[in-house]
């Protein structure tokens, strides 16, 4: 039971990563695959922030003149995840524009029916 107490966030993050990978590997519709890419992105960001957490920590912001810096959480993963979220939405927008062009060219979004695809 204490195992669950300590690792709840890790279980949630890895669950999201595996569900996202499963959707990318086995679904036929192109927009479903892009939704899976978005879920995978959210899972990886959650894992990065939960690594930087320190038990009984506070947020790294000085809200008054005398705040002790003993128990602040790590600010470096938060800066990296801020970048990663914006890049994630840029990748999703570009992928959706390519999906729209593919639909205009082939008439279908099923990956098995597009000409020349085997997998």
């Amino acid at each position, binding site marked *: 039971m204490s195992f669950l107490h*300590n*690792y709840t*966030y*890790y279980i949630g993050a*890895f669950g999201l990563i*595996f569900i996202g*990978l*499963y959707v990318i*590997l*086995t679904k036929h519709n192109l927009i479903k695959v892009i939704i899976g890419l978005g879920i995978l992105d959210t899972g990886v960001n959650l894992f990065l922030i*939960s*690594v*930087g*957490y*320190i*038990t009984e920590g506070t*947020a*790294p*912001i*000085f*809200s008054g*003149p005398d705040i002790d*810096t003993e128990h*602040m959480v*790590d*600010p*470096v993963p*938060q*800066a*990296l995840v*801020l*970048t990663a*979220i*914006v*890049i994630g*939405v*840029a*990748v999703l*927008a*570009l992928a*959706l*524009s*390519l999906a*729209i*062009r593919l639909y*205009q060219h082939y008439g279908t979004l099923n990956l098995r029916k597009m000409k020349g695809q085997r*997998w």
Partner: protein
Amino acid sequence: MRKIVSIILLVIAALGIRLSLKEVRFGEHETEVGKHYVDEGRDETGATNIVTSVVVSYRGFDTLGEVTVLFIAATGLGAVLTAGGGGKMRKTEPASLVLYTGCRILFPLILIFGIYIFIHGHLTPGGGFQGGAIIASGFLLNYLGCRERRISRVASNLAESLGGLIFVVIGLLGLVFGGYFLLNFLPKGTPNTLFSAGIIPIIYIAIGFKVGSELASIIDNLIEES
């Protein structure tokens, strides 16, 4: 067949992750770099939001790369979608009176809220990216409510280009005045006031305008049909 192979692959990946994460426990990992940023961050940069000082001042070059990636994605989307040509012209009916009136009242308030968030990025949680996203959602509300108004291409291109240009010019000014790119050359001031922390508010204002106009132009390119 494909599902069985996928599940076997995922089981192998899970075993590998379990074996390699035995050393990372939850809540105990403390790094030296993070400790240095938290202890010396307020004196070295003058900003009270440590995450802002890490994003703009200590790791400012990564933020420049991210702004470039966002610009490439928005330009690529515009190039892909207008090269096709031809989509069906759909008849859009005008919105109802409640939605129209509510949208006209709420749109300036959302813009002011977004501008407030990225101006105070070095004092409170917030910053350029969050404020830019709020401004873009204000423009999305404008598309859903009052449907005959579109943003002008000239103004959005101008805001986007000026934002990126100001960021690079301030970095090059740091190279001129001191030794390296993105040096903090303005005076730091007293912490917890609006005009403090050197170049950090100026860079965040430029990033806020750039991200807001870029996301609004992404939505504009996706909606426009034929």
